[in-house]
């Protein structure tokens, strides 16, 4: 720690390599999404699913052949969580007895099993959900751009939205690469990542703004580097605690929120990285200057030194 205190780490020194790294990741993600596509969950595709609990681990292949013999087509059979629970997904539309019929068909082959849950989503509903979700993501990004643009400055707005898009694309890329199921809960995680990564970016941006006003020496790169240095232990600590709880969620939260936890874990790691290397580098590229940070002088007060932003008066009274 003590060495760090004396001399700031040269974060921005490797920003060119970091930029190349980010670009490669984003391009790779796009390629993976284009080639593999996303393994969309039932929520988005529509269809039916049945979750079964066996007494002893079944042979998935036998289940598949049993179902084929029973006349089902276009289905996926996979383990869900542990080896005794099985998830059957069908593109076939649901009716009253489908869940029961699948259970019966499998029971007939001599296994002991229980129906844990079943679901059916109409294709129309899935289609609408997909549209709404995409719209929600875009809306979230737009609102962030506007808020940060107003609160800080337009360049900061760009510098906070681009890393968010970067994070979202990389998570989508990883999900498509490993063909993990992308369902509603993962979508919620994506939006939470936007919130989290934004949190990080804002804290860094806030310090950059403060330092631009306070520090009279050094170029933008130096000031930005200094700001990152000052906030790095906060960034790592918050990421650390958040990662800790997410790991708890991943290992103990149950199968249903596994993908949610994975998306958030990737998001926190990538988000922490992007708030430093994407957001801050972008500020340098956009050429943020000290002048950008000056509060526009009020009439009659020209020349007066701008003041550091103060918390509202009520807080000081507290």
């Amino acid at each position, binding site marked *: 720690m003590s060495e760090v205190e004396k001399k700031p780490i040269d974060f921005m020194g490797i920003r060119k390599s970091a930029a190349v790294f980010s670009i490669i990741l984003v391009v790779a993600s796009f390629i993976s999404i284009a080639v593999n596509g996303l393994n969309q969950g039932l929520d988005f595709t529509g269809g039916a699913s049945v979750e079964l609990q066996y007494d002893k681990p079944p042979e998935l292949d036998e289940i598949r052949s049993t179902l084929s013999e029973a006349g089902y087509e276009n289905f996926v059979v996979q383990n869900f969580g542990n080896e005794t629970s099985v998830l059957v997904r069908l593109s076939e539309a649901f009716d009253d007895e489908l869940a029961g019929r699948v259970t019966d068909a499998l029971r007939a082959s001599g296994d002991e099993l229980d129906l844990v*849950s079943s679901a059916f989503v109409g294709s*129309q509903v899935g289609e609408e959900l997909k549209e709404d979700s995409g719209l929600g993501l875009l809306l979230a990004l737009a609102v962030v751009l506007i808020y940060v643009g107003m609160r800080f400055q337009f360049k900061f707005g760009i510098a906070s939205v681009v890393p968010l898009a970067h994070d979202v694309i990389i998570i989508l890329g990883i999900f498509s690469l490993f063909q993990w199921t992308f369902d509603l809960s993962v979508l919620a995680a994506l939006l939470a990542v936007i*919130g989290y990564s934004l949190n990080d970016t804002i804290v860094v941006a806030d310090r950059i703004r403060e330092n631009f006003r306070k520090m009279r020496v050094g170029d933008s790169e130096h000031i930005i580097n200094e700001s990152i240095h000052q906030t790095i232990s906060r960034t790592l600590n918050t990421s650390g605690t958040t990662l800790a709880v*997410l790991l708890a969620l991943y290992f103990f939260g149950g199968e249903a929120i596994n993908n949610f936890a994975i998306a958030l874990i990737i998001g926190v790691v990538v988000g922490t990285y992007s708030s430093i290397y994407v957001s801050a580098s972008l500020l340098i590229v956009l050429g943020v200057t000290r002048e950008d940070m000056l509060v526009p002088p009020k009439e009659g007060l020209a020349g007066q030194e701008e003041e550091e932003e103060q918390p509202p008066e009520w807080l000081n009274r507290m």
Partner: protein
Amino acid sequence: MLNKYPLWKSLVILIAVVIGFIYALPNLYPDDFAVQITGARSSTAVDERTLERAVSSIEEAGFEVKAASINERNGLIRLQSAEAQLKSRPLVQSVLGDEYLVALNMAPSTPDWLRSVGAGPMKLGLDLRGGVHFLLEVDMESALEQRLEAYSSQIKRELREERIRYRGGDVADNNSIVLTFRDEAARAEAFNQVRDQYNEFVLDQRSPGEEEFELVLTLSEQEIRQIEDYAVEQNLTTIRNRVNELGVAEPMVQRQGRERIIVELPGVQDTAQAKRILGATANLEFRLEARQDAPSGATEVLPFRNEPNRTARLEREVIATGNNVANAQQAFDENGQPQVNITMDGPGGDMMNRATRNAIQRRMAVIFIEFRTETEELMVDGEPTVVENRIEEQSIISLATIQSALGASFRITGLDSINEASELALLLRAGSLAAPMYFVEERTIGPSLGQQNIDAGFMSVSLGFILVLVYMLIYYRGFGLVANVALTINLMLLLACMSILSATLTLPGIAGIVLTVGMAVDANVLIFERIKEELKAGMPPQSAISAGYSRAFVSIVDANITTLLVAVILFAMGSGPVKGFAITLCIGILTSMFCALLVSRGLINLTYGGRKVDNLSIGGKLSNV
């Protein structure tokens, strides 16, 4: 004095914390598994003797009964386990018979003193307690068509009464009715007649050919909206009635968007029965048999329900529908055959009387209408696509000669079985649907899965919580302890807020809590790092604390407001699981800001404020700089 809160401020924080504690407390008392007994009819109340019978039947089966009580008209038997609950329900039902409805329920075990201040536990979502979830879509096209049909017969009758001669009058596409007249005078007369009586229509006169005078009645946009609204609202009411007839405890029936309805039935496992009753679009129509000389456009040939090969030719005009039924009871006729006794409401009785008084010795048909969805796979553009076909099935259940003018009360015979008769009576009583509905989403969650989800959620919240506590304590020492107390209070306030708002806790909601726990310390971390920095810069401890809190304030607010914005969007756009997550995230952000800015500050002030301090226990070798 620096870093000292005035007494009133400490009191305000204390009071907030105490209130939070009281309202979070009920969540520590787990719900009891229970079976609820209700009278099948509103006149039947559950008495001590009935309850006694139910309790002894459960005890005989070897399950322990925790408590049994009567609240108002319902009986509630609390049991030890989910298994006992599941097995007791059919037992009790068979002992008590059809006069009572027995439903699974989760009974809160909140102590009385807490209940007296209005505190109660959070509601558990379906994914945590098991049950079924349906999303139904109202078929607006047929709602509009039905209404137009009704208008069309009414207008035609009025034109006949006014002796204005017309042709056509059928419902055309794009929500309109087209009437054709022989001359302009007749059309003008009809125009005035319709304009005065029906402001729902936009009227249009046109002459497509020589000697052809048409009057086109198109429903106004506003009226279409109204009909749609009415259809959804009416269906909501009907579904609520039907759910009540099913005897489900704490059901949820809610409108979603313009044309959808969500139904959640906790504890229900038999989806087939629930679906049959909820989705049953069975309705009745009363129509006359067509005369021999009736023009074919005004008639329709329908099969009999029991003998599909036999058909009858009926008038298209509807005398009355099941919507006009005020009451319906299943009964038996002289020969012991099932029948349904029907009482019409005022207008229904009038319509029936007016139509039958001039039709004595003619025959009247009772038509049973059912809507079903059938799916088939078609090849569209070379890709297999599942197409949903909505099929309307009409069949005659009885065709009887009218002996004398019918009034408000009459009976329907010709039903297959007692079951069919009682189901028809139930459907007519609970009200028919204003428009057919289709199931577009369905989810069943088994009770074991629910418990599993609760356990997993609880486990991950506690583990995450402990990890954060340890982390903070090691890294920030004394200040870490303060942050930990603030975090604990934060979690408590979050639970209290959710209980007060009676928000529903779902699995994604638990994930939201976990995430909040992880992120809530962020504000404290920001503040503590700032204090460390100020100390490093040589500031004395007291001023460093003050500066740390006030300088970190701006970052905290900016960071949290942006996150809050995203969470609000998530809430507004999301459905189901996403909403549950968003709501905990929103509340969590607010409570964590309160805790970091006021509670942790208060604690620090209590510890260090108002005295001379040389050393802060904030971790790292900084204090000697």
